């Protein structure tokens, strides 16, 4: 069993390394890094225990194939027990207790340092879960500086961030494995999670509590960037949407604001201001469409608008039934929303 276990452990490390943007072993956040070190401590202790148990078991099996054994029914001594086994039992009990105590204490202190890493947050983000997308609001004391986005989170590296979590419908769970563990979003409660990103990069988060038919397509793109880039991004997000330029974009804008889209979506700077669906003000600057269902591209935007139910069956975005012209115009306009 040992070589097999070693190979599997090696495979685990190798496989763990090849995925960098959604990986609990990434350790790019403070809590995530604590997880990685604690995880390997547990793996080491558990591997020793496993070797002890399975090793002594297999050794016992190999030894017990002997033709005669003194303490069996064949010798009439099946009830007798060697004294040494009793002492070993006590030793084993102590070993388990000590091992578990070490692990419990390690777990306790990791938990404490997790709690500490998010102290004194310098940025507050409100994330609200919906079936099946994330509503993200960057709050500021100055209301004119607050803004909304959806299905993406930008974080400055090295800055503690507090994320306040709420749900509009069912229970969801906020999970960006590279940065930290999970926190559920529960209707009727406000929960929170502290994030402290230590490395820049693009990471993927995903809803981790089953929340209905499209639970699989409820992802979150997390960009950790330098403070400078983050400020640039914030400045972009705070401004109104870019105005349509070409006639086809203008036609798309008209359709958006006059027709179905504006019943649910908002674009800052336009009459569309509904908050039922994701805010689309800077839609085209995002990494993906529909909470990670499709990567961002003109073709995917068109495919998504043409028939959302085909891409994400059961989602709340209906198939509007657009003419080819309307579809083209709308796609052009959406592409404009950088």
């Amino acid at each position: 069993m040992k070589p097999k276990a070693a190979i599997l452990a090696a495979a685990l490390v190798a496989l763990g390394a090849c995925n960098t943007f959604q990986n609990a072993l990434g350790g790019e956040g403070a809590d995530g890094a604590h997880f990685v070190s604690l995880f390997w401590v547990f793996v080491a202790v558990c591997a020793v225990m496993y070797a002890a148990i399975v090793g002594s078991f297999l050794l016992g099996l190999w030894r017990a194939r002997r033709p005669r054994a003194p303490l069996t029914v064949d010798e009439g001594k099946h009830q007798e027990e060697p004294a040494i086994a009793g002492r070993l039992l006590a030793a084993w009990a102590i070993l388990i207790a000590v091992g578990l105590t070490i692990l419990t204490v390690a777990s306790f202190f990791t938990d404490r340092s997790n709690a500490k890493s998010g102290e004194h947050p310098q940025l507050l983000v409100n994330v609200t879960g919906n079936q099946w997308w994330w509503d993200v609001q960057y709050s500021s004391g100055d209301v004119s500086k607050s803004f909304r986005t959806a299905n993406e989170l930008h974080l400055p590296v090295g800055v503690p961030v507090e994320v306040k979590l709420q749900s509009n419908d069912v229970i969801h769970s906020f999970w960006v494995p590279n940065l930290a563990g999970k926190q559920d979003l529960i209707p009727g409660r406000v929960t929170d999670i502290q994030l402290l990103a230590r490395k820049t990069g693009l990471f993927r988060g995903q809803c981790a509590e089953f929340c209905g038919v499209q639970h699989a397509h409820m992802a979150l793109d997390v960009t950790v960037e330098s403070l400078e880039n983050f400020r640039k991004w914030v400045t972009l997000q705070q401004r109104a949407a870019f105005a349509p330029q070409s006639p086809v974009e203008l036609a798309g804008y008209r359709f958006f604001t006059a027709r179905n889209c504006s019943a649910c979506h908002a674009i800052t700077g336009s009459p569309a201001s509904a908050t039922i669906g994701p805010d689309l003000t800077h839609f085209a600057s995002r990494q993906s469409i529909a909470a990670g269902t499709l990567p961002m591209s003109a073709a995917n935007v068109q495919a998504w608008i043409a028939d959302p139910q085909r891409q994400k069956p059961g989602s709340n975005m209906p198939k509007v039934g657009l003419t080819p012209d309307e579809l083209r115009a709308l796609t052009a306009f959406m592409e404009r929303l950088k």
Partner: protein
Amino acid sequence: MKPPGKQKGDGKGKVPRQRSPRDGPQLTGGELDRRLAAAWALPPGFIGWLSSVDHKDIGRRYIITALAFLALAGALAMIMRLQLARPGNDLVSAQRYDEIFTMHGTTMMFLFGVPVMQGMQIYLTPLMIGTRAMAFPRLTAFSYWMYLGGGALLWVAFVLNIAPDVGWFAYPPLSGPQYGVGKRVDIWAQMITFTEVAGLAVAVTLTATVLKQRAPGMTLARMPLFVWSTLVTSLMVIFALPSVALASSLLLSDRLVGTHFYNPAERGDALLWQHLFWFFGHPEVYIIFLPATGFVSEIVATFSRRSVFAYPIVVLSLAGTGILAFGLWVHHMFATGLPRVGYSFFTGASMAVSVPTGLQLYCWIATIWVGRVRMQVPMLYVVAFVITFVIGGLSGVMIAAVPLDLQLHDTYFIVAHFHYVLIGGAVFPLLGAITYWFPKVTGRMMSDTLGKLSFWMIFLGFQLAFFPMHIAGLMGMPRRVYTYPGGMGLEIPNLLSSVGGGVVALAILLFLLNLIVSLRSGAAAGPNPWGAPTLEWATPSPPPRYNFAHLPVVASLTPLWDSPDRLLVAQGLRVDERELLLTSVIDAVPDIREPSAEPSPWPFIAAAATSVAFIASIFSPWGLLFGTIPAAIALIAWFWPKTPPRVEEPVIT
């Protein structure tokens, strides 16, 4: 029946040799068997089949039905593995996938895991403690029909495309009236009610049987370890199931008549469900696992040719696990944002529960070290159990730690963990136990060749199917997703899992094939083919309806090893009527003689009437009220007192 003055015995474990002068003539041999067979016979025909209250019939029905559900839920697992074999697959729709994983989990937990263990307990317990029937045989029969009704409800719903789609845990508000659309969730919740009734009925019956019907001389300290595990799990069922009964009733009431138990907008609480559900749900795992440790203890003893080392430690471990299991439920809720100090307590408790299991493992290993092991198929499954279950146990220690669980919770790491625990810890011992007791049940041995082939396939296929899930979970794959994107490195682990799943499915089919083939053409077994020490091997295979012609008297933990040629027997039970010997709870001193219920179709009718009431109450609250009327009529008929025939000269054994 008989005035108390006619009780027999001198109240010590030893039973008098001379018969009481007022009893009838003592019988032995063929005449005794004939008369006992007549007294314990089944009424003829289909009605008789429905009326059976024989624990062997009921246990067998439980096991066969549960194995059928295992096959069905396993087929669903294969559909899931096919769907997940590659990213972005569209073999099944999202909606259908949700139904499938809900059906898989629900069936495995409620219709396979617990019932198959209870079925084994129902079959084996009276034989192992040396009695003729269960304590409340009609209640046992009733429980089976309720279980079957619940299973039929769920699977008929699946066939009709109204299967539940909110997971086997059914968290509100997703399962509540607003988001749990239609009757799907009601069907799930009412299926829970069916299995609760069945499970509680069996638990009560088994507890009473174990405590009051042990053979004279079988003190608590001489009870086989499997019987101890039966007692502990039955008590756990009695304490755990009311919690989920309450939870599912509140959910049904929210859904049917618009109460607000789980509605935060009206001062209800969505988390209330999780507390109630996991207060049941965690012990549930041990309710499945502890009987398996009982199997392992029996198999290890028999195949090591000696008693399990440190019997009192094993018993205390069982009891300790049973108690600790009720203090762990919050470790399913570490991500809900409860106070952190509370989490530390549940971390400690979750880690502590591995102590008793660790001690049990030591006792089995020590038994093997000092014994002489025969590597036959049941023992092979014990090997698979240790190698596999310990991985699951240790990954359980990992997720007991809050910082680790917050990452691993609700990922495929957890899927891997609990399949290692439940398949490694319960199904492997169960397959070993089926192989071990198959000759007792049928009188024939299972094929060794097929047995070894399916063993190696399931053991290796299992590792291939479930070990990669640890990796998939660490790489960020959440549970309960019907698809996953490519390019995240999830392709290889998922493909390996799907291939391994196929091997496991083939192995299970091979095992079932082995059952069928061996039933027809297995080698004749004889009463005790393995040279085992416990009482069930003292009677012919398959056992007669009355189990034992003479009730055995026990003077040690391993009666068949200590007096291999002949057992002491108790005398003085009537032959022409169904009669049991009740003994005292601790020391098993003969206490009174007790009539045992005759076969009756009324438990079946009562179960059918209760089923109608339960199913009707999915659609209208009045269903519950008016549904009780036929159920009450059936119960009255069931309990209608029967005047015993006056026997001038009672005949005794």
